[in-house]
């Protein structure tokens, strides 16, 4: 709990908070190493875990902000799908071929930001509870994506885009670098900037933040825009990874993302958020799937094991995090 410990500080304000998760992750690695040995531990497999984690992780970073502020964004997956559909439209891809592949990136980001803006305005100015507003966006964005794509999968034909997205840097795929970059940026944004401070304040006590002169509504809009932006970034990564744009991208991400963030230690009621925890939560989930596959586990058995492991991870996380933070609210 000591705040003077610099490592502890980095680990999300207090090392203790993440120790439980690190233990859970370590246990999982041991299980992986014991059951699959070299096949699990080799570099390629580690990169596989990270590549899988990266897209999901980028979205989770954005979601961490929203949840820290006491909100929720169920629309992330669906919005991600929409960004891929619009960025892979024939017209966009043609224009991108003639100008630059960056056009596709810009389109994806713009769509994400736009959807986030709509979410934010409905929530902050329409006073619609975030759960409902973003659930409506989840449904509607998927519908729009289907209409625009005619429910078909659009292939990425832009070679430049693909070769950039699949490039490596220092032996590590670009996707993983993007995740790292977004995570580090997210960490700084949450812990070292006024934006992050406002986010925590709003999640901790919205009324107090308002009375302290923080423009709460505007900030809430920005938070959902940020979440839309990370969905857009994830959309770009997804197009690179799957070479396709389709309305089914991001299907059922909504609960998984929130689960990773909350397992990471961010409070669902707001007021406390940890980027390091989110990254650990995401890694936990992706390592889990990897270990399952390595062991050729039956899908249903996987599901049962997954349910149990999620609960155990949270129990572990709490076991170590509760100390010193005293009684917590929202036990329910």
């Amino acid at each position, binding site marked *: 709990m000591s705040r003077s410990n610099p490592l502890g500080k980095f680990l999300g304000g207090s090392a203790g908070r993440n120790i439980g998760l690190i233990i859970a992750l370590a246990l999982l690695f041991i299980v992986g190493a014991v059951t699959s040995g070299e096949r699990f531990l080799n570099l390629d497999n580690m990169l596989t875990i990270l590549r899988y984690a990266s897209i999901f992780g980028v979205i989770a970073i954005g979601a961490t902000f929203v949840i820290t502020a006491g909100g929720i964004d169920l629309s992330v997956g669906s919005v991600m799908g929409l960004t891929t559909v619009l960025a892979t439209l024939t017209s966009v891809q043609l224009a991108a071929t003639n100008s630059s592949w960056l056009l596709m990136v810009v389109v994806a980001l713009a769509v994400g930001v736009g959807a986030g803006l709509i979410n934010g305005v409905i929530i902050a100015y329409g006073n619609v509870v975030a759960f409902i507003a973003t659930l409506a966006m989840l449904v509607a964005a998927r519908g729009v994506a289907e209409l625009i794509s005619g429910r078909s999968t659009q292939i990425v034909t832009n070679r430049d885009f693909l070769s950039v997205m699949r490039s490596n840097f220092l032996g590590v795929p670009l996707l993983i670098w993007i995740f790292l970059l977004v995570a580090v940026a997210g960490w700084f944004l949450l812990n070292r900037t006024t934006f992050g*401070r406002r986010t925590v304040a709003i999640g901790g006590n919205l009324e*107090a933040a308002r*009375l302290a*002169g923080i423009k709460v509504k505007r900030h809430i809009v920005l938070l959902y825009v940020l979440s839309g932006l990370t969905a857009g970034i994830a959309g770009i990564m997804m197009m690179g990874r799957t070479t396709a744009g389709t309305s089914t991208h991001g299907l059922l991400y909504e609960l998984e993302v929130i689960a990773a963030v909350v397992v990471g230690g961010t409070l669902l009621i707001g007021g406390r958020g940890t980027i390091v925890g989110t990254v650990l939560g995401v890694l936990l989930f992706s390592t889990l799937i990897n270990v399952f596959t390595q062991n050729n586990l039956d899908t249903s058995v996987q599901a049962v094991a997954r349910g149990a492991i999620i609960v155990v991870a949270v129990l572990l996380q709490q076991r170590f995090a509760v100390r010193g933070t005293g009684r917590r609210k929202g036990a329910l």
Partner: protein
Amino acid sequence: MTASGAPAAPPQPVQRPLLEVRNLSKSFAGVRALRGVELDVLPGEVHCVLGQNGAGKSTLIKALSGVYVPDGGEIRWNGEPVELARPADALALGIATMYQELDVVDGLSVTENIFLGHEDARGGVLRIRDGRRRTRELLALLGHDDLSPSAEVGSLSAAGKQIVSLARALSRNARLIIMDEPSAILDSGEVANLFRVIRELTGQGIAVVYISHRLEEIRQIGNRISVIKDGYSTASSLPVVETSRADLVRLMTGRDVANVFPPRKPPSSDAPVALQVEGLGLAGSFRDVSFTVRAGEIFGLAGLVGSGRSEILETVYGARRATSGTVTVEGRTLRPGSVRAAVNAGLGLSPEERKSQGLLLEEPIYRNVTLSTFARFARHGWLNERAEKAAARKQAEALQLSPPDPDRAARTLSGGNQQKVLLARWLIHGTRVLLLDEPTRGVDVGAKTEIYALIRSLAAQGVAIVVVSSEIEEVIGLADRILVLDAGRVLATGNADEMDEHAVLDLVLKGSAQ
């Protein structure tokens, strides 16, 4: 106070104590809140527990109510040692508690709140009519026929909630009722009412443990006094009649605190007008409120609970959108309904409900202190946390915040120190006009004097201050000028030294009679 009257005669000393507390201790992570507390409560007495903020009073009563399990020591009830593992255990014994933090449920009605946990029911099915009837009886006993048993508690003012809380404690038919600062949010009329009820209770042999920072009240209602300092008992069961105010203060603080209100230094009449409120109104709450406050002046709003004082402050501050009128700060008219505009113009509000409106309880103290100024410690949005913390620490030291550790969560501070955090917030801001809603609610005598001195010195530095307080003598003692309010109407405005408590009360009562 209208509630004056001789304290009841002390009960017979031969009586066996109802409750005995021996050498009680309780620690929280790193904080030893109680370390050897003694308490004896006799049937039919009003036993006052005194202590500074953070002395451990609330912790003691929570140990007596089964909220906290003590680490050591003994609690005896009727001579028998008891273990109170959960609130239900204490309630079952006959110990009912009014907690310091309002413990009502906003979404439930008055009746439902009062009988929460011991509803009038048969086989789990509520007997609504019986509940309402008993509620009406209780409310009548408390002199509040005006409260509807079916009203939603969330729609009541803080004082209304406190009354519900009291009715709940009474409804338990307890033999000991513990009241943790019940008067903090009550005006003098309500306090008189409370005392009448307490006398009726003690007349029936029910014991009351009474906690308050208002020493005059203790002299009026108390029989015996126990004093806690830093978790220790420094005195047990002193008879009120034999203990002087100065003794009490010394027992609590370990020093002498004199001169409660600092002397007035009214601003020169040519000081610029800092705040001008004209024809301000809020539909359904108050109307046509006008006043001006000059730089360096302290302006008080007096009135009964629910007269709309808090709402006036919040409307001036932009937290509520005025339906009519204007607010002008140093010549600039504010955009209505915008807190940001008010803050930018140099306004600051220390709200009435510290916990729900003021503090980020889980965040460290320094972040609470800089909540409206952290952007100043940032360049292009990039925070310089070191500078921020240093500034917060400096301000906290200037206010003698205790403990002085700026990294502690605000939640672990005692009430008085939480109030200081809010003041520090606006001091750092360099506010030109400070709106203080109940700045000394729940604050101990020592800290109160400090806060008074602080307010005065701020005024001396040219800050215009508006104070709302339910303690009329506080408004009169502190303010240069006063505005008296009743049910959202301005009754009078005048110089404070031309008024006294009775004059103000008379005004209010006449106003209400109309």
